[in-house]
């Protein structure tokens, strides 16, 4: 038998019941409390906004954040498609199947016990099971990290107005990075006010078609202030943020400087014949919540 864990290190073990409770709590919390980086993003946009209508709209959005917290209510009626990102560190023992079931049960319980609107339907019959669950939903993304004895569960209720602002193009190498930039600017224009700006625009560059789209989602849901780890990607973020905000789409598409909190980029290596680019958009209700499990217990955050 292979020794799975380091000698002398007691692995982190998490009961499925704890995952279920966390999944339920995170779904509800994410819908009610915006992360600090997003609140700061609003303050920054408001300070720089020069258009009167845009300023009034930003003020209403900021007021809503306070009303949601004071009345313990949802920020937005769109409970979204539930997404759970699970990061599993080293020296962790988990029953993966039980983890998936626990996340699903937590999602169902949040929906029924709060109650929340189930925004999830069968794609062909359009039948709503009123559980926020269905085939492949909640979406669960798994990743493994180097840190020892830690599991992080991140919940993102992805609203549909901004998710409908998703674009993919399999550009070719001859289109170059110029083609990527043009695609992003045009995507912002097509999305306009429909995606509930100010937005975080997520851009995936490279990979396969599905990886590229996934990268765009990762980029769109990253905290404000975070940067692309790749220096070329990070440089692209600056230029594209400036370009998108120079268009004048503004909050709600009614004009102004505050179109995007930021443009985030994620990159993946791609094929010599390929140059894929994808855009996924996060609306101003950029909701996230997380639970971090360590041997010391659970920490709830964003």
């Amino acid at each position, binding site marked *: 038998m292979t020794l799975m864990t380091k000698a002398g290190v007691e692995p982190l073990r998490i009961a499925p019941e704890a995952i279920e409770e966390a999944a339920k709590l995170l779904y509800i919390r994410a819908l009610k409390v915006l992360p600090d980086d997003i609140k700061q993003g609003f303050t920054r946009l408001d300070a720089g906004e020069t258009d009167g209508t845009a300023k009034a709209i930003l003020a209403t959005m900021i007021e809503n954040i306070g009303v949601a917290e004071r009345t313990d209510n949802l920020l937005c009626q769109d409970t979204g498609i539930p997404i759970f990102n699970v990061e599993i560190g080293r020296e962790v023992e988990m029953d993966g199947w039980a983890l998936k079931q626990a996340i699903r049960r937590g999602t169902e319980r949040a929906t029924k016990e709060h109650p929340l609107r189930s925004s999830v339907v069968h794609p062909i019959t359009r039948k709503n099971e009123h559980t926020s669950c269905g085939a492949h939903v909640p979406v669960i993304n798994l990743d493994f990290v180097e840190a020892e004895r830690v599991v992080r569960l991140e919940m993102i209720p992805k609203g549909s107005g901004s998710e409908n602002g998703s674009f993919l193009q399999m550009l070719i190498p001859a289109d170059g990075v110029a083609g990527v930039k043009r695609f992003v600017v045009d995507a912002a224009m097509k999305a306009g006010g429909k995606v509930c700006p100010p937005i975080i625009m997520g851009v995936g560059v490279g990979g396969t078609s599905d990886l590229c789209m996934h990268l765009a989602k990762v980029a769109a849901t990253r905290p404000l202030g975070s940067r692309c780890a790749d220096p070329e990607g990070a440089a692209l973020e600056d230029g594209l943020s400036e370009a998108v905000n120079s268009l004048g789409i503004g909050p709600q598409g009614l004009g102004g400087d505050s179109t995007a909190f930021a443009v985030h980029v994620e990159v993946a290596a791609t094929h010599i014949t390929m140059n894929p680019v994808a855009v996924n958009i996060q*609306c101003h209700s950029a909701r996230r919540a997380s639970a971090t499990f360590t041997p010391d217990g659970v920490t709830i955050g964003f």
Partner: protein
Amino acid sequence: MTHHTLHMPCTEAQIRALRVGDTVTLQDTLFGIRDATQIHMFDHGRRTRFDLKGHAVIHTAPNVRKVDKRGTNDSGYEAVCIGTTTSDRMERFTRPLMEREGVRIIIGKGGLREDSLRAFQELGGVYLAIIGGTAALETTWIEAIEDVDLDDLNPESLWRFRIRDFGPLLVAMDSHGGSLYAEVQQKVQDRRAAALAKLGVA
């Protein structure tokens, strides 16, 4: 830029008095409607028992809690959180909503397109913009869910809300061909070349 208070239902003359840039606060009654509601009403031939003549509809599907039917909640539901969805998907239903049901006001976010603007001009209608993603605030403007129809489509049922001081809402498309969205889109189009040039894209 004038502020108007409208008690629902309203008349064509009241709608014709609204101009883009004006603000409006609605009183009394508001109907909630969405994709599935309108697909069933206009594509599948279903009818509602509600009289929507002269009324306002809002593009929404609320979060609700089931309750015993009582005085203020005859629908059997009370509001948890009521907000507004993106209007653009429901563009093709504007004209039938107005022609068949007599609706005069559509409330939504993100705007509607050319065909809706023409319907507003010809039939006397208006689009009022609410701030998307501000549902906690919006919920405080709704007093009760008075009634519900087509509830097999829940949460995309046809809802009747009792409202108080619902707004201020921005007149973003009026009955005289004015559209703030079209104005902004033209400006954005005009700025595209400069944005690309700055990025070094020909």
